[in-house]
């Protein structure tokens, strides 16, 4: 092979290489016992991510519609991949920042935690840049294996270990289905490269049973990863059992990467098979939204509640794929960005409130927050209203743009169903806001006389806001608010990135 080609390939994958080198360096560093080890590891991981993101930006295609394919067509650098990588950097970096406090509370500080997160990041990056089903699969497994371990990271906690075991079994099962779908596709077309698939399937006979089976298996495998109904059973248990920062990571970064694959495969190369999956996917989207919103109503654990909430958001995101247009795709891209901001912000607050290791995370963690910490309460309220899709927050604009795409494609009935279900979903977000603003934290004496000036004189002990936590909150809060008030800029980014996604 030509050395120039190899050099170009290495250059194209340099962000992934940087992250993997960073992960190896973190592994070395974690062997060195030191009292500030955690701090160094955090810094090392963040610098790695910063370097990778600088490199990604530098490699970003200009003009945006250029698609650079390397490694003999297995790996691609385009605006789509660049956008998703930036999103993954954001999600992972914020997860790392919010982990420090949690690990200290749980007394589970270990260097491997950061190493595994960086490996997971590398896996997701490979997923979004993969132009070959096998490469995508390898990225997915790298990510999944790292997350299995991280889910069970709290070795002394039964729920964490249980969640990890469930995740391994169900994850392996779903990977198997996915892999079987891949092998069928390979058998039918003789290739696993997305570009080749596209032309091979353009003339395929859609009534061929093997092709239907292959499409179904591929779709099911990916729907498993994003947690769509009826493949959602793992989500609540694993969200509840996993360490909270990992739950945040799961609901943001892993989902983002899986959506990238779903988009690249189904809206890119398998777009010719659309008649096979579009109506089924519509039913799945509605079922996902309905189940997520309705079951969330009766949850009393905050992490389970957020698990069901994330299921209902997945349903809403799937609507963008059903729209099947470029604007549907950019709606998903925008939604994922805004969803990253608001979800991570809320998880950061959950971590801040979580102090008693044994008590878990009941909803009552939030009660009375407004009286003890007005600022945090206000942020939590904005995140919750954003998740519920109330303007002028980012969450509203995200949903709005999905609806625009959906109605543009003529699916008005689906849009009506979607908005009615999101009104149901608003109920449980409102319930949390009620807890924050109305219920007192502890039975206070003479509730009418209690002046609510500042965070003093209340039962709740002051929450210590460390610098990394402040940074997480600052990022996620300003992201949530700005994307709602000035959506034009975020929208332009998402639109630019999605155009090239359809082109390959």
């Amino acid at each position: 092979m030509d050395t120039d080609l190899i050099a170009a390939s290495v250059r194209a994958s340099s962000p992934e290489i940087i992250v993997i080198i960073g992960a190896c360096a973190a592994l070395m560093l974690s062997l060195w016992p030191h009292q500030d080890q955690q701090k160094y590891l955090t810094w090392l991981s963040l610098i790695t991510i910063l370097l990778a993101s600088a490199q990604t930006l530098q490699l970003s295609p200009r003009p945006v519609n250029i698609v650079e394919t390397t490694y003999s067509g297995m790996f691609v650098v385009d605006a789509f991949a660049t956008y998703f990588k930036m999103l993954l950097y954001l999600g992972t970096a914020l997860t790392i920042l919010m982990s420090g406090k949690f690990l200290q509370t749980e007394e589970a500080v270990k260097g491997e935690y950061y190493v595994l997160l960086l490996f997971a990041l590398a896996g997701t990056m490979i997923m979004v840049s993969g132009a070959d089903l096998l490469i995508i699969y390898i990225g997915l497994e790298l990510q999944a294996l790292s997350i299995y371990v991280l889910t069970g990271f709290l070795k002394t906690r039964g729920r964490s270990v249980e969640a990890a075991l469930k995740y391994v079994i169900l994850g392996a099962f779903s990977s198997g289905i996915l892999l079987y779908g891949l092998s069928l596709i390979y058998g039918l077309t003789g290739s696993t490269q997305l570009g080749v698939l596209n032309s091979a399937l353009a003339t395929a006979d859609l009534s061929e049973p093997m092709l239907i089976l292959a499409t179904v298996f591929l779709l099911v495998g990916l729907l498993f990863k994003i947690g769509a109904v009826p493949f959602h059973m793992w989500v609540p248990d694993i969200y509840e059992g996993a360490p909270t920062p990992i739950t945040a990571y799961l609901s943001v970064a892993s989902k983002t990467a899986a959506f990238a694959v779903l988009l690249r495969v189904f809206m890119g190369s398998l777009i010719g098979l659309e008649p096979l999956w579009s109506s089924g996917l519509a039913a799945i989207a509605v079922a996902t939204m309905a189940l997520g919103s309705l079951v969330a109503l009766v949850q009393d654990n905050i992490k389970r509640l957020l698990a069901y909430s994330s299921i209902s958001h997945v349903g809403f995101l799937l609507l963008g794929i059903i729209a099947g247009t470029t604007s549907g795709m950019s709606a998903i891209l925008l939604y994922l960005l805004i969803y990253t901001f608001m979800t991570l912000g809320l998880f950061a607050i959950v971590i801040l409130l979580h102090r008693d290791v044994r008590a878990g995370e009941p909803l009552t963690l939030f009660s009375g927050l407004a009286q003890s910490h007005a600022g945090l309460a206000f942020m939590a309220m904005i995140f919750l209203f954003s998740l519920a899709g109330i303007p002028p927050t980012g969450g509203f604009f995200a949903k709005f743009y999905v609806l625009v795409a959906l109605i543009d494609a003529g699916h008005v009935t689906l849009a009506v169903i979607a908005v009615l279900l999101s009104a149901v979903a608003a109920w449980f977000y409102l319930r949390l806001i009620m807890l924050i603003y109305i219920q007192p934290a502890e039975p206070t004496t003479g509730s009418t006389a209690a002046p609510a000036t500042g965070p003093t004189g209340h039962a709740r002990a002051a929450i210590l806001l460390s610098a990394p936590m402040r940074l997480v909150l600052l990022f996620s809060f300003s992201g949530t608010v700005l994307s709602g008030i000035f959506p034009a800029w975020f929208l332009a980014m998402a639109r630019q990135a999605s155009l090239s996604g359809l082109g390959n």
Partner: protein
Amino acid sequence: MTPFPILSLVIFLPALAALMLPLVRDDRAIRWFTLTALLLDFALASGLLLAFDSESAAMQFRESYDWVPALGIGYKLGVDGISVLFVFLTALLGWISVLASWSAIQTRVREFMISLLAIQSLMIGVFCALDLFLFYVLWEAMLVPMYLIIGIWGGDNRIYAAFKFFLYTLAGSLLFLIGILVLYFAGGRTFDMLALMGQPYAFPTQAWVFVAFLIAFAVKVPMVPLHTWLPDAHVQAPTAGSIILAGVLLKMGAYGFLRFSLPMLPDASVYFAPLMIALSALAIVYGGLLALAQSDIKKLIAYSSVSHMGFITLGLFTFNMNGLSGAVIQMFNHGITTGALFLFVGLIYERTHSRDIPAYGGLIKVVPLFGIAMAAFLLSSMALPGTNGFVGELLVIAGAFGSTGWAAGAAVVGALIGAAYLLGLYRQMLLGEVRLPEGAKMWDLNAREIACAVPLLVFVFWLGLYPKPVLTLLRATLEQLLAQVIGTGA
């Protein structure tokens, strides 16, 4: 040429004050600060009303900037004769609400005033918006502060009431959003309201969008049978919440009909007019009968609102000048009068902590000023000649006779029922033997309370005796509106 952005200033002044409130030191200063901000805003809104050229039907004081150009979303503002009136009403009720909460709200004053300022900005924004997306954002964002006002500072059953209010309105609003998007695509991918008006949409599109809008606005008005959130919300809301809810928020639904349904969907409006008139007549009579059966003052006034709002929707769908101008005047009147009634219920509740009508009697002897003012508002609410209510109801009934005779008959019956329950309330509370709930500490109106009542009283009699200025203000706008509906619809 960029003229001074006066509308933006009126809209954002309260919001800016809300952003500054966390820096203000104690509760007393917070109250004064909020009052000053809202008085200033009121002064600006009054200036707007005076500077408004009532000869022209065009939008005035327009501002237009790109917001999300890729989707045809703009930040576009402007007022016509209708909206300038409601900007004024909102600004007026704003500072009155602050005065009404001066001593009634003792807990978490800062948060309360922030919510009040926020909702004030959003409501004024709704009346000024000329872009559907902007309108929708403000319209729905309004739910948040109102939800907090009811939920945090409301009565014992406030959580239930706040949830009900929020979810009812949200479900309606989301359908409104779908309707907006359908119009957006049918009207050439723009959210500009003026561009969306007067376009020949196909009738099925109009009909579906009309139904979606109808549900949203009917919840907000509220029209029977979607009114059940209102009594709960009103009874539980603190006084200021009730004033804003009755005074401005309920007007939003009727304003929606005026601004969107009639001019954008004229064919569907004409097609659905019999239904609308029937629902309005039903609301007038049924709301009145419900009010007749109440022994809680706030519930009584809440149900009377349902009945009075029926007059407004009836007037809107008569499609004649009398009916339309009666409806708009009645919207303004209802804001003044019902706002005032809720204010007075709040004042008496502060003294006695009871809203039970039979527990009272002879108040006019105990607190004469209070009694006289309340009597004036009750009479205005039952549309006694010489008060503002008379002008509005008369015009609506006249308009209804011009279009649907039996509905006018129902309106007359409704007016009679109104007289029955309002006079009943008047007799029982203000006249007769002196009776007070236990533990009542009575005092007559103090200076602050008089300051709230006097401007409202002025409007009651001014509009009752000399409504011409308001009619002049509305004429050009309503004529244009009528041309938009009948011109293409008939």
